[in-house]
């Protein structure tokens, strides 16, 4: 469908450095090429100039390109267009980059940029972001820790219908809050704004719906397997924090139980807990018998002061290197470690070995269903500038706490609050914005090779019952990855067709030449 495009260009030469005569030349050059009308308008700066655009005759055009000399971020609000033109079909072209000096070349570049935009627009379908209203009004919190409970309470406090899904029994009552206890979330499906969570509650499979899902990650105990033939008692760090007393002889805190096993990958210890524990232990006047063996003393920020307090009380901090890991001496309660600073091997009396707690990654299958981009090790990684804070690639799925990776305890509280405030803002908005450009599959061409299903970072591509790939438009973000990889060329981005791309490339080549 080719439509008439009206090109508007301001004669305000103040920003462009192009004179009135040049502007008229540009317009005459454009009118030779373009099928629609070309209009000279007054400057776009200022509220009045924008309003005057409403009365300009557009000669039956139903879409428009506005060439703007000032940088785009300055003008802010879009100009008011004549009624015959849909605001979604107005393309504003920033010409500030094509107008450094008034020369012939620049005039050509300007004409090129404008005709390219007009060509693109004449092919385009109305680019409208779709508002998809939330089918559900509820927010689901998945997690069993104290933080998950606190998050659910806060969300309910701000008037949002909240559900908390947790494995253990909990007798909690609050307005707007529904407790789905003794249940395990199995799988998450659906589109943003209308998620379906299937869960097993007391052995019975049920389903619940939610517009937003908050996953609160937890820590779990490391696999504490004391080495064979040693009498060393191994205590998980978090249990030690609850019962600090009862230790007699030497006590060794280690940052990573895997340190004794040269093959295992290191885990990230809970330094906050570890340092508080050593500080507490040092108060029981056992400080001389306490040693902390670690790769690095990760007392970041003001934790440094806790570390200092423990060190001044007499707790020994010993650093080791990955190449010279500590060893448990056979038959004795001794741990040998090569101190990096002294350069000597030290033998530590260790009747009790306090081991760290590690983060528990989500089950791979669960992540698969959550459309969260994950690494090879299936730890969900979503914190990146592109994705925003603690958000998954799917609008409405939020990750907090240890879901992403290990962090200090005092970093989690702000993360949780910031996520809650984002959920509140999202729920008040009441709708999810579907992208204008979405991928579409021509079923006849699809060879069911699963390439798009594997590639889509948003898990929007699925295989239907008749073995043809389909793209769920509401999940699609229009990134174009599937278009690029499809071996049968069965996928196209709607609103951005192949002839259009070809024309755009041709136009840009012209400009470059």
């Amino acid at each position: 469908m080719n439509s008439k495009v009206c090109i508007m260009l301001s004669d305000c030469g103040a920003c462009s450095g192009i004179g009135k005569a040049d502007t008229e030349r540009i317009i005459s050059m454009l009118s030779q090429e373009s099928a629609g009308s070309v209009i000279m308008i007054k400057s776009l700066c200022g509220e009045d100039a924008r309003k005057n655009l409403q009365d300009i005759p557009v000669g039956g055009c139903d879409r428009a390109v506005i060439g703007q000399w000032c940088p785009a971020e300055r003008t802010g609000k879009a100009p008011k267009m004549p009624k015959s033109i849909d605001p979604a079909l107005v393309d504003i072209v920033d010409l500030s980059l094509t107008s450094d000096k008034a020369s012939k070349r620049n005039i050509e570049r300007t004409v090129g940029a404008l005709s390219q935009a007009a060509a693109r627009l004449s092919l385009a379908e109305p680019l409208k972001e779709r508002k998809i209203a939330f089918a559900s009004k509820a927010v689901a919190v998945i997690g069993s820790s104290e933080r998950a409970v606190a998050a659910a309470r806060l969300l309910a406090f701000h008037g949002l219908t909240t559900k908390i899904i947790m494995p253990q029994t909990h007798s909690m009552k609050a307005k707007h809050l529904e407790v789905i206890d003794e249940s395990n979330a199995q799988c998450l499906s659906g589109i943003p704004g209308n998620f379906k969570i299937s869960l097993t509650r007391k052995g019975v499979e049920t389903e619940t719906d939610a517009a937003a899902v908050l996953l609160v990650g937890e820590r779990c105990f490391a696999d504490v397997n004391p080495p064979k033939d040693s009498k060393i008692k191994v205590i998980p760090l978090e249990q030690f924090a609850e019962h600090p007393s009862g230790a007699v002889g030497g006590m060794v805190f280690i940052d990573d139980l895997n340190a004794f096993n040269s093959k295992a990958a290191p885990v990230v210890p809970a330094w906050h807990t570890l340092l508080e524990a050593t500080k507490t232990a040092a108060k029981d006047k056992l400080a001389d018998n306490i040693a902390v063996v670690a790769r690095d003393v990760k007392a970041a920020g003001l934790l440094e002061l806790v570390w200092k307090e423990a060190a001044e009380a007499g707790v020994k901090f010993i650093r080791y290197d990955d190449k010279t890991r500590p060893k448990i001496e056979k038959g004795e309660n001794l741990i040998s470690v090569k101190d990096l600073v002294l350069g000597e091997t030290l033998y530590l009396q260790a009747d009790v070995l306090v081991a760290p707690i590690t983060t528990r990654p989500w089950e791979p299958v669960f992540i698969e269903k959550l459309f969260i981009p994950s690494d090879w090790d299936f730890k969900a990684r979503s914190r990146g500038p592109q994705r925003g804070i603690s958000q998954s690639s799917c609008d409405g799925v939020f990750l907090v706490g240890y879901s992403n990776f290990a962090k200090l305890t005092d970093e989690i509280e702000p993360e949780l609050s910031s996520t809650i405030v984002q959920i509140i803002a999202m729920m008040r908005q009441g709708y999810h914005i579907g992208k204008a450009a979405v991928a579409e599959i021509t079923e006849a061409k699809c060879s069911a090779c699963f390439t798009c299903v594997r590639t889509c970072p948003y898990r929007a591509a699925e295989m239907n019952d008749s073995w043809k790939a389909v793209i769920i438009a509401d999940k699609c973000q229009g990134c174009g990855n599937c278009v690029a990889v499809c071996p049968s060329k069965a996928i196209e981005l709607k609103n951005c067709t192949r002839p259009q791309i070809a024309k755009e490339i041709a136009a840009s080549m012209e400009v470059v030449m």
Partner: protein
Amino acid sequence: MSDVIIIGGGPAGIGAAETLLSLGKTVMVLESAAFAGGVPLDLSCKGDVECTRCHVCMPRDSGSRMANASGLEVVPMAAIEGSSSKDGGTEFKLKISPRYVNIGKCTGCGKCAAACPVIGALVAPPHGAVPNAPYINSEICQHFTSKKCTECAKVCPTGAFDYDEKLKTAAVQGKAVIVATGMDPIDPTGVQHYGYGYLPNVLTSLDAERIIAEHGEIRRPTDGQKPKKIMIIQCVGSRTTKGGVEYCSKFCCKYGLRFARALVERVPDAQVDFLYMDLRTFEPRTEALAWIGDRKNFTVSQGVASVIQKGANNTLLVRRTTASDATIEEGTYDMVILSVGGQPRPETKVLAERLGLKTDSFGFVVSQDSWRGVFVAGSCKAPMDIEESFTDGKATALSVLSHLEVKR
């Protein structure tokens, strides 16, 4: 009366402002510098080849997203002269320094910056700065020093320049206040054995960033050549009782490693040695160090540099301990970059006293007054990196929301 007044337009202030705007509140940001945006405006992206999650772009993008939002008012170059409780809110008396550019008229076209004959007299806004308009440094500008130069006003298409602008006073009121004044970098002049200040090739990380911003690459200040051997020393000014602060500044490890990596990528033939006390990055250890792999021109080692001396041909002689066998080693370097920590700003203490907030011995704000609607966000509470203070700003927005909406 605005709903919320945010003091400080750094990452925390911008994070809070963006969140509150999305919740439909009116926000006023008071900023002491000419542009809101904070420290990230001075830093370069560390992901030349692939994203290293340095988060420099995070507050910048956020700033340019909300620059045109209705309900936002940014007051740059403002100093707080006094505060009082008024009508269930807080009133601030401000002194606003002259900018000599009308922000409403400026279109940000950048013609004036090209026309200005004195370097640094007309400062153009970096990407993501709010407001997107330049300002005139009246100490250097020839209009004020000698010649009555009006080059910038001549080229300005909208007539935005006003050389007669005077110091203004204003009173602003808000129902809630967020203190987000942030941190200052520590001046390593106090660490005398590193020779910062009199050895020109010893730079702080921020100096190096400035050179990169100016030339697009790292250069030696003495001869303008690309350095062949660079050492990055961590924990300068932090974790010390001599010429610095006792606590750990927390952001320098993450920053320093990423900066070193960016240097190696930008200057492939240079040798970069990275010297740290403890690596306090909380990404899994493998992630932070995996990139280094078996790269020969990038070493990461534990140890402390004891002294930096002048060598031949503008080189620097660094004596340091090596942790692996506890010996002392000497090396010659073309350039030494000191990764400096941060400390609370002295103004924060004055402001905290005015608002009735407590500060600790370092100057960090340790209390907030949610009853009167005075909240604290970002690195004026404790050392934080960019992403953390951005998150903390957003988190504070939740407390502010409760204060504004929930009846007591």
